[in-house]
């Protein structure tokens, strides 16, 4: 029983990170139909930039904010320099562009920073908390709480603000959105900036636990993508559930089978979703009417 709870704690922690990455996929996918494989690099940038500005003497909270802002700027640049000019190209080409961008960002990070593993201090110390016989790191609570905060904030944004509704309208029907006066290019820029900021935020939260290096993005993108697929691509609720579920599945696999199989879970989930329920748990089965 203690072991199960322990696995749940660790599963929730990584799951929250996967959920945030999946959410990043979802936002960009909704605005543009593009699956952005540079999403993992946003997490890496969030962690790396925080580490290096912190090491340069900037207080940790400020370093984190700087990292999130800088990463959002990278997201906006990705859209403006690579995606927007190729607008009208097939979606597959756009996806390949994002893969190229992820390689570029990784390479640049390796040059600008280094190849080492880094961390900065946990926000509330490293002393584990005991809960019903299991332990949980205070930083895990930060990760889970941060993810909840992002999801609630985004839910408010999409349901309460006109800008949020404009994003949803664009996701629903791009042409119709333009027709009612929504600047869909701006919506895309906003989506890339927002996704990048969310990714960076995840990186800031999780770095004290998992550490960060220039190449952590690939794995995270894969896991986040699997989470998004599981939940149903394009659905924020699906991103949350899918990400958490994948984290839990991984933790259980590592705990009850072997940690060697842990990384296979994401692949199995992707395959299973593709074969059994291509729309995921919450995916819409909307049909185009002509």
């Amino acid at each position, binding site marked *: 029983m203690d072991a199960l709870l322990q696995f749940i704690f660790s599963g929730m922690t990584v799951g929250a990170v996967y959920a945030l990455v999946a959410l990043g996929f979802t936002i960009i996918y909704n605005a543009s139909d593009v699956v952005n494989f540079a999403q993992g690099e946003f997490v890496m940038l969030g962690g790396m930039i925080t580490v290096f500005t912190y090491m340069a003497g900037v207080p940790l909270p400020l370093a984190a904010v700087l990292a999130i802002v800088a990463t959002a700027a990278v997201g906006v640049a990705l859209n403006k320099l690579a995606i927007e000019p190729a607008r009208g190209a097939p979606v597959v080409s756009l996806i390949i562009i994002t893969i190229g961008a992820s390689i570029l960002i990784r390479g640049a990070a390796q040059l600008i920073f280094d190849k080492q593993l880094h961390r900065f201090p946990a926000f509330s110390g490293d002393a584990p908390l005991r809960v019903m016989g299991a332990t949980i790191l205070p930083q895990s609570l930060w990760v889970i709480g941060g993810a909840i905060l992002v999801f609630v904030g985004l839910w*408010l*944004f999409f349901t*309460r*603000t*006109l*800008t949020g*509704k*404009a994003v949803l*309208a664009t996701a*629903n*029907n791009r*042409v*119709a*959105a*333009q*027709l*009612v*006066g*929504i*600047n*869909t*290019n701006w919506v895309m820029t906003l989506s890339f900036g927002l996704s990048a900021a969310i990714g960076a935020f995840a990186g800031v939260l999780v770095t004290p636990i998992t550490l960060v290096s220039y190449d952590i993005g690939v794995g995270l993108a894969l896991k986040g993508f699997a989470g998004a697929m599981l939940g149903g691509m394009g659905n924020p609720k699906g991103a949350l559930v899918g990400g958490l579920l994948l984290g839990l599945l991984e933790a259980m696999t590592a705990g009850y089978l072997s940690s060697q199989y842990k990384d296979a879970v994401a692949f199995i989930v992707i395959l299973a979703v593709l074969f059994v329920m291509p729309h995921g748990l919450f995916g*819409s089965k*909307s049909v185009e*009417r*002509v």
Partner: protein
Amino acid sequence: MNLLEVKGLGISFGGLKAVDDVSFAVKPGEIVSVIGPNGAGKTTLFNMISGIYLPSRGSVTLKGQDVTGTAPHKLAEMGLSRTFQNLQVFQEMTVLENVLAGYHLRVRGSILADLLSLPSMRRRAATAREGAQALLTRVRLDKAAGQEAGSLSYGALKRLEIARALALNPSILLLDEPAAGCNAVETEEIDHLIAELAASGIAILLVEHDMKLVMRISNHIVVLDHGEKIAEGDPVTVSRNPQVIAAYLGADHAEATHADS
């Protein structure tokens, strides 16, 4: 002054001149129809005027301003709105939300006012809601306001698109086959609606295959065939034009149309 002026407009798709050297003008409150056989280039012409396609040649002038290739959302701000032959509605939103989306430009304030839901914002949202309801009543969809748009019939969706376009408070409205797929009663309703809109000063640019409707309500007709303008004029003149009869109406239809006009 002309509200809309199209001069020498043309576009090619890989060698095919889908529209070539088309010119005409629309005045405020006027109903101008564009007719022509299937594939004549009517929708393509609309797409160029409304900023969906970038024309290869020619210019579009709206209220004296050159708007060739201007993005659709900018044109919406300038008072040009349209509907689509193949329907572009927000399927996953309710009928009311679809029309509310059309109020987006008039309602928007700062994001901050929005997030804090300031009174100014709420007042504007309430006005939009009332306006949207009134528009739905006008196209007889008020009863369906809360329904998901995706569940409506084809004819109802056509009217929903018109209501949404009207929410933008346009000075010119482009309607691409508004009566297609509608039954006789619905067609009659659309007919009345268009006449009403024109009477209220909105210019209408219409593409429609229902010849009776076109001949009855148009002030001016532009005839396209294979992307080129082959005739223009008032309904009587156009329906008697031998080239039009040959290209479009077909020899056997000619008599019926004469009888109508």
